[in-house]
């Protein structure tokens, strides 16, 4: 029996990892769509889109792994959460369709009007997907009503001021990551502009992080206890302190014209720390505030069968994903699209 408990934790960590990879990878590429309205020149928009064109569908595959992994390792949690956040999930899926096809259609459209329409689809899809993901996070944190093995709430329960706050925070955070990515990939005048934008979205992101962090303990007694009770506080206290430290460092690098890569790397660290904070809040629940990971876990035989494969395959996937990024590394030449 004890090895099944270990597997459940292992799966929770692996799923958390794939959701984190999704959030940072698709985060910057959704962020580019969110930043699109601030760049009106067609050539600027072309190069922004080209900076993620070779990697975007790999990025979204992590979302499929998150959903598929939850289905496989915690089928009961998957079966409860999905109906609970039905409208934002459907909105996210449809939004991802709009922005995904824009990557290809934008280059096939030859009238000005249809080009603008696919630009609008890219912007609208990116903003909506980011907002919906934040709302889903918020709805999940604030708790889901469960009866037996099924969702028992209504189909608007997800909509609260807290979930909207989370949605807005995620939009700001993704825009910030997108700006950091572009700061790394572009040069010249446009890089100067994205760096200024990165500062604005950085401030918005920090405000978002602070607001969500302050609101979370009021959502339920469990959250406050996990953060503030002795002795956990010795382990949890460093997280907000580290976030503050990274934030200060980030703020300084954003004013340093020589720093092209550092803001993006520090941005990833910032997201990782926030993710760790969320993990502390939720642990060890699979569906707040009702179902623990162990209650929702698939039988050990299911988890073990997948785990054997995942432990071999995930490092290989990370390897060739890194290779694909490495092939398309460095600054983009605005004179040369990809062929």
């Amino acid at each position, binding site marked *: 029996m004890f090895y099944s408990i270990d597997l459940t934790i292992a799966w929770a960590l692996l799923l958390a990892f794939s959701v984190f990879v999704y959030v940072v990878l698709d985060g910057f590429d959704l962020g580019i769509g969110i930043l699109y309205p601030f760049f009106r020149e067609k050539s600027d928009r072309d190069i922004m889109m080209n900076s993620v064109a070779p990697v975007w569908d790999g990025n979204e595959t992590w979302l499929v792994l998150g959903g598929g992994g939850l289905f496989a390792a915690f*089928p009961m949690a998957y079966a*409860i959460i999905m*109906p609970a956040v039905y409208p934002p999930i459907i909105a996210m899926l449809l939004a991802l369709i709009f922005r995904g096809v824009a990557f290809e259609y934008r280059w096939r459209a030859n009238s000005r009007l249809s080009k603008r329409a696919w630009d609008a689809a890219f912007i609208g899809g990116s903003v909506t997907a980011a907002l919906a993901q934040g709302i889903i996070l918020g709805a999940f944190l604030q708790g889901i009503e469960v009866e037996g093995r099924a969702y028992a709430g209504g*189909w608007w329960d997800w909509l609260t001021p807290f979930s909207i706050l989370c949605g807005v925070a995620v939009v700001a955070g993704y825009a910030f990551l997108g700006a950091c990515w572009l700061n790394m990939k572009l040069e010249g005048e446009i890089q100067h502009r994205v760096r200024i934008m990165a500062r604005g979205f950085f401030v918005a992101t920090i405000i978002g992080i602070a607001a969500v962090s302050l609101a979370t303990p009021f959502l339920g007694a469990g959250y406050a206890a996990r953060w503030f009770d002795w002795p956990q506080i010795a382990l949890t206290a460093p997280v907000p302190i580290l976030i503050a430290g990274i934030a200060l460092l980030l703020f300084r690098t954003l004013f340093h014209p020589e720093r092209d890569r550092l803001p993006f790397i520090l941005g990833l660290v910032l997201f990782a720390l926030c993710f760790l904070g969320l993990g502390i809040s939720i642990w060890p629940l699979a569906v707040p505030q009702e179902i623990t990971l162990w209650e929702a876990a698939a039988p050990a035989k299911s988890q073990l069968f997948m785990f054997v494969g995942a432990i071999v395959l995930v490092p290989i996937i990370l390897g*060739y994903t890194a290779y694909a990024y490495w092939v398309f590394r460095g600054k983009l030449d605005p004179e040369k699209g990809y062929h």
Partner: protein
Amino acid sequence: MDTFLGFDAVMLARMQFGFTVAFHFIFPAVSIGLASFLAVLNGLFLWTKDEAYLRLFKYWLKIFAITFAMGVVSGITMSYQFGTNWSVFSDIAGPVIGPLMAYEVLTAFFLEAGFLGIMIFGRDKVGPGLHMFACLMVAVGTAISATWILSVNSWMQTPQGFAVAENGQFVPEDWWAIIFNPSFPYRLAHTLTAAYLTTAFIVGGVGAWHLLRGQRENPGVRTMFSMAMWMAAIVAPVQIFLGDAHGLNTLEHQPAKVMAMEGHFESHPDGAPLYLFGIPDQEAQELKYAVGIPKLSSLILKHHLDAPLDGLDTIPRDEQPPVAVVFWSFRVMVGIGFAMLGIGMWSLWARFRKRLFEAPWLHRAALVMGPSGLVAVIAGWITTEVGRQPYVVYGALRTAEAHSPLGASAVGASLIAFVVIYFVIFGAGVAYILKLMHHAPALGERGVRVEPGPIRTAGVTPQNQMRESGHDIAPETP
């Protein structure tokens, strides 16, 4: 009961799943075939250095890129719909099918997506060897993906290797038995072959279009039409053989589905007829206006003219699938299959007479048959899925007991959103693909991401620059 426009939540959820999966299915069916076609073209180009293959590679790569993007985004939807609309099914069957789908993501989706960027944009960056490797990985990835998802689908048709736990969940007992369930090898072979055949007819249809429009001397057009017709001639008969084997397997494990396919309401103790036409009336339990060939069904299914065959009168009414849908979708699929065989044979005759590129009626027929594979694939899929009803996991879990606790209005609203948005988005995509197909593959075919206007690529010779410019002014032989 809670309804939306007269439909209850279960029916709406079925419509939504059926609609989104049917739309999604079209894209992988094409991208499985195209990925392999592209890998072959790129390999032939590297081997022979014949420019026609590179031209075709770049031409079909643009179409592949759009198809693949539509497949990815419509596929993300599928991985979440199990939970959003079929949460009870997800909870109960998740321990068995969830891991198989997770393996699909880990072994196939990442492989395809990881190497797709290099395949499309990376030829100059990684060199021909690694680029070829990337093309192969994408092709292999699409086939691996099909393997896993068809294993899942087959398990839902012929489930085995599991037990039912106290909490109602299906618990895996023997993974080998689950993955290699009885219908899996047949369904995999039949569906993969269908994907290759579908793509061959699309490629052949595009080739035929340009042959009819006076591009007979274009080596790209000749090559693609010839390759497609070889596929039609060789693979269509193989597919009919595989389909027959799959049917016999279905007879063994899901006899009610075969009864519906055949329109056999009544049992035939001494030889059942093969009905070619009829109007199934499930209320009256009879096939009206039936036109059939006596005893042929027994010959096909039992290899004996007088072999007895049970009919739907041996199946309780609440265990019968909707007969009319299964009966007709099956006939559409089989009819298209034989029409494909006809085109294949016709092309062999034309080739034998050395008139393959000078046979306008063959070209017209091939053009009409261009999209037929897509229709056949969807019809075949409807046959097998509707034929499984009223079960979602055959014999183990009923569809009516598997849906999410959602109101009809929630599902109805999302269904309308899916229908409207899919038609707009994928309609535009099809229009762009048709526009690409309308141009004949030209010397110095462009890649995926080159804007019209002068190409300012650094470090190419003037001659290459002319070849890459994509304008048809360059002579055929440099």
